């Protein structure tokens, strides 16, 4: 297989659960453990009861110059896979062969030191990411220009705003020229303008014949940047297919089919605190939860959540997306300025934010609902672009007398007038 950049062969990764891994241990704990339970040793054999497979028997190839997407829910093993391929952690079983230098964007800004200036951090970070000094020196001007922090380049980065910091960090990473680029969700950073720039940079990389492994929850970015995608579910690879197919599969499987999605504590990232999403559901005009609606009837969306503490300036909203990840609209419960003023501080308690997608808007097909709870420019508490999928049936919609699919995501009922011109 001469043209494969990455060959992954039956890789598995087992993690220990319970006592040891994430927690810091102290001698005392170890001593107590050893005394009370002499058979359990920190470095003892892992058994099925005290460990789980974060990745199980994963095999795939990536051809040189190909961009491969990796999608799956939180905890499906995406990040573990990237960590193994970038050699941060070792697989428990299996092997992988990688042809070429791997540049990893698992997190931008790794190794940045707050006391050093922007320029010094460029050199340091470049070295950490595997760039040679002369390479960095050659690209220095380009990196500084890309980061848009020229004026502050000789200021310690601890005085940077978080936006400047991210831009500088990304600029260094974006100027790596590895044969294989590993990217994990970096698109989530920065403002819209900067994200556009990053996406542009990434498609440049892909079009230069370099191999890209791209993990994201952003389906539209996956569709735009990759040709092929693998879907992971609970550590197992469920499919490897052309991206459009894989994304459609991902969005339509693994979700509740009842028009309802519930979040349990395990699904909620720790930084969502104090926002606790509970459930999102879609209801038909009879008030019944359903997963299929008629294009001619309104769809009511209810998002139930709890605030463990008051939040100022909170907005809770929904996204509507196609199964290909294209955004159709975004709407927040406090879009109306008067409501926003009234609810400036949302007290602790349980809430339901409810809205209705009017009748005669959606075309037939499958739609994805996402949720977002954030404070503008301050913090995004919770965000899930694929909370729920529902179907829309076109029966009775305008134009259904012709049995042909209508192009487009929406099918609004417009009022036409026809007049004969004299």
């Amino acid at each position, binding site marked *: 297989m001469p043209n494969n950049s990455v060959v992954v062969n039956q890789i598995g990764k087992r993690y220990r659960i319970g006592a040891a891994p994430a927690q810091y241990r102290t001698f005392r704990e170890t001593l107590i453990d050893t005394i009370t339970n002499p058979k359990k040793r920190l470095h003892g054999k892992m058994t099925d009861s005290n460990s789980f497979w974060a990745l199980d028997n994963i095999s795939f190839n990536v051809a040189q110059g190909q961009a491969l997407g990796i999608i799956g829910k939180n905890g499906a093993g995406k990040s573990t896979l990237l960590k193994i391929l970038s050699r*941060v952690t070792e697989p428990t079983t299996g092997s*992988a062969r*990688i042809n*070429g230098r791997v540049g990893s964007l698992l997190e931008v800004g*790794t190794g940045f030191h707050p006391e050093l200036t922007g320029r010094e951090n460029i050199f340091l970070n470049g070295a950490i990411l595997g760039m040679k000094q002369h390479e960095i020196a050659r690209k220095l001007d380009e990196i500084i220009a890309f980061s848009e922090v020229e004026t502050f380049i000789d200021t310690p980065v601890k005085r940077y705003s978080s936006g400047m910091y991210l831009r500088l960090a990304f600029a260094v990473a974006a100027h790596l020229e590895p044969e294989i680029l590993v990217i994990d969700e970096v698109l989530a950073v920065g403002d819209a303008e900067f994200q556009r720039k990053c996406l542009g940079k990434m498609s440049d990389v892909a079009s230069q014949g370099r191999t890209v492994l791209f993990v994201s929850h952003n389906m539209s970015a996956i569709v735009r940047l990759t040709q092929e995608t693998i879907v992971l579910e609970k550590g197992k690879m469920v499919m490897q297919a052309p991206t459009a197919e894989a994304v459609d599969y991902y969005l339509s499987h693994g979700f509740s089919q009842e028009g309802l999605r519930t979040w349990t504590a395990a699904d909620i990232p720790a930084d969502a605190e104090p926002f606790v999403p509970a459930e999102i559901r879609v209801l038909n005009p009879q008030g019944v939860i359903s997963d299929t609606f008629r294009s001619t009837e309104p769809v009511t969306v209810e998002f139930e959540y709890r605030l463990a503490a008051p939040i100022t300036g909170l907005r809770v909203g929904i996204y509507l997306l196609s199964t290909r990840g294209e955004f159709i609209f975004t709407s927040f419960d406090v879009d109306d300025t008067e409501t926003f003023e009234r609810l400036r501080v949302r007290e602790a308690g349980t809430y339901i934010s409810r809205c209705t997608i009017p009748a005669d808007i959606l075309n037939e097909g499958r739609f994805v609902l996402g949720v977002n709870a954030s404070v503008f420019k301050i913090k995004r508490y919770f965000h899930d672009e694929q909370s729920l999928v529902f179907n829309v049936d076109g029966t009775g919609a305008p134009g259904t007398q012709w049995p042909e699919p209508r192009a487009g995501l929406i099918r609004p009922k417009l009022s036409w007038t026809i007049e004969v011109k004299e």
Partner: protein
Amino acid sequence: METKNAEDTVQTFIQPSKGWKIVDLKELVRYRELIFFLTWRDLKVRYKQTILGVGWAVIQPVLTMLVFSIFFGEFAGVPSDGIPYPLFSLAGLLPWQLFENSLRTASRSLVTNRNMITKIYFPRVVLPLSSVLASIVDFFVALPILILMMVYYKYSPNIYALLIPYYLLLTVVTAFGVSLWFSAMDVLYRDIGYIVPFISQLWMYLTPIAYGAGMITDPRLQFIYSLNPMVGVVNGFRSSLLGVYNGLPVQSMLFSALISVLILVSGLIYFRRMEKQFADLI
């Protein structure tokens, strides 16, 4: 894991590691720029936003020397092998502080650079190594003070001063070896952060810095005492610098080297064994 260089591309083979290879020197050579930059970062950052800056590298040993000279030298009259006490203690303090600074920074180096370890691959041994390298610079900053003191007390080194680099190397090797143990254990047990300052304080009293090794006369005790690798190193450094030797101290040179290398090799083996779990456990 093994990496080999083809004509133009790097091929990496990833699989669960086994075997007893203790350190991949070829890989370290490829990562020499990273070692350089991390050392440079440690140096650059160490005295940022301080008034006295690099002056601290001089102030610490000099003040310690003053306190030692007053209390141990003057009041207690601690024997100093016939050398003026201030010179005696400073000549012991400099290699000791090289050792202690290396140990203190290198032992914490993995945990303080946690975010690098969990995100990027590089030979982990680079972190304690560059901390040790950065400490060497402090030593050379303070060295002129010692030379001035020698001039003041009219001490001139003899031919055995050529042994100084040898003992410095042993200091660094020992510090690096102990740091390998401590830094790898630090990943698992955060106690190490509390233990290291305490251990190094005790260790200093077990090393002939404030007093001369000649104080210990019982041969059995002498042997146990000399198992402390820093005994031979500090004595050797001081004696070769101050012109005490008048014959090559072959026996003590070899013995010190043996202990230092043992610590280094065992440290490398332990580090290697733990290394693959760092990213998961840190």
